[in-house]
């Protein structure tokens, strides 16, 4: 337990650059496959494996670095991603409370939805104070739909594969809930 944070830093230092590298290949795929969001997949599976609030800090590290490679003002992706993860972990503990294919799909769907929601709200807010950001409108909606239609099935597929390899992902695996203390 004492070395939990060290383990977290080790995992983040190894996996975040890898996710950035793989995502930079994925965005070059032809549409609609360029909408596969590896951060969403990683966070969904990470949540189902760890089932801990540490995933929110992992999301912060991931989106802080991802934000270096976007054209929007620094902080927009970081805030949208981390807050989305914060909402999803609460939903996971209070509403989903389960694991399995449906839970994986719901987690991926809610992360994508809340990220896109906070991202759009952030852009809308920034567009009021600066000319360098505009509200994406129709482009945002089509990206969101494509991201859900592509990322959710890929997450489910990876979950099914990983559940055979990682015992903690199996439906029959029980874990202690922290919701009611």
């Amino acid at each position, binding site marked *: 337990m004492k070395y939990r944070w060290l383990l977290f830093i080790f995992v983040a230092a190894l996996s975040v650059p890898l996710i950035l590298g793989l995502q930079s290949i994925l*965005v070059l795929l032809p549409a609609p496959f*360029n909408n596969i969001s590896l951060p969403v997949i990683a966070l969904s599976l990470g949540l189902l494996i760890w089932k801990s609030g540490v995933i929110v800090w992992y999301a912060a590290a991931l989106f802080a670095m991802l934000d270096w490679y976007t054209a929007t003002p620094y902080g927009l992706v970081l805030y949208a991603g981390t807050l989305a993860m914060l909402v999803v972990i609460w939903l996971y503990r209070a509403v989903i409370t389960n694991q399995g294919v449906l839970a994986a799909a719901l987690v991926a769907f809610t992360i994508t939805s809340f990220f896109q929601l906070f991202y759009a709200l952030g852009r809308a807010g920034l567009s009021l104070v600066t000319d360098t950001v505009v509200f994406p409108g129709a482009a945002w909606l089509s990206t969101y739909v494509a991201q859900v239609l592509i990322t959710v099935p890929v997450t489910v597929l990876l979950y099914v594969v990983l559940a055979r390899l990682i015992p903690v992902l199996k439906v029959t695996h029980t874990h202690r809930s922290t919701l009611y203390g």
Partner: protein
Amino acid sequence: MSKTVRTTLLIIGVLGLIVGLRLAGYTRFLEQAARAVTDRIVRAAYQTSGAAAKSQALRAIETAQCLPEDTKIRLLEDENAALREQLFFLKDTARHVGAQVIGRDLDPLGTTIIIDQGAAAGITVNRPVIVGNGLFIGKVARVNETTAVVRLLSDFQSSVAATVANREKSLGVVEGGFGLTVRLNLIPQNELIKPGDAVITSGLEAGIPRGLMIGTVEVVEKKPQEPFQEAILNPTADLEALSVVSVIL
């Protein structure tokens, strides 16, 4: 105050601190150290991808490696001629910085590229970016110390003042957000434009010189009830296969 609210406020506070420290430049050292690794990974990923392989320069090199000597010489002569052409074009402009494309925007909503030159090389926001013999591909959207993000013509947020090489020298605004094509808007109805007409930057926008080639008119959309006509353009530069670009300072 419940634990959930406290944790939420803590996280929001930490995020604010990260953004604030970065804006103030206190995390530069840390960021440069981390980016020394991540930039390499992103660049390697881009360069091994199909888009980079499609680039003309790499194609020329790969082809040259498998062809007989005389063909290699002919290819090198062609490449030399293209580079001279770019050099002569850039000689007329005040200053420029050559940069290599290291990746694409990781946000699928945007159509942008990341280049390996930034504020340290004198690049500022809204500078025009070209390839080849003055083919306009976009403008600098965000500048970091050693990298910059270039918003391509086809991005939904892209707009540039342009003029058509027709008799009236029609003025308009080229906007992206329509897939691989771009649109020329705000052309008065009484002016005649036709498919095949060249569209160049008008020079009416601060920092963007006149005469950078944008594309050619593909289709003209004229509705009598509207005050302006529109044209769909085919960008001259291949925006999907960019490897080396120049930023005009």
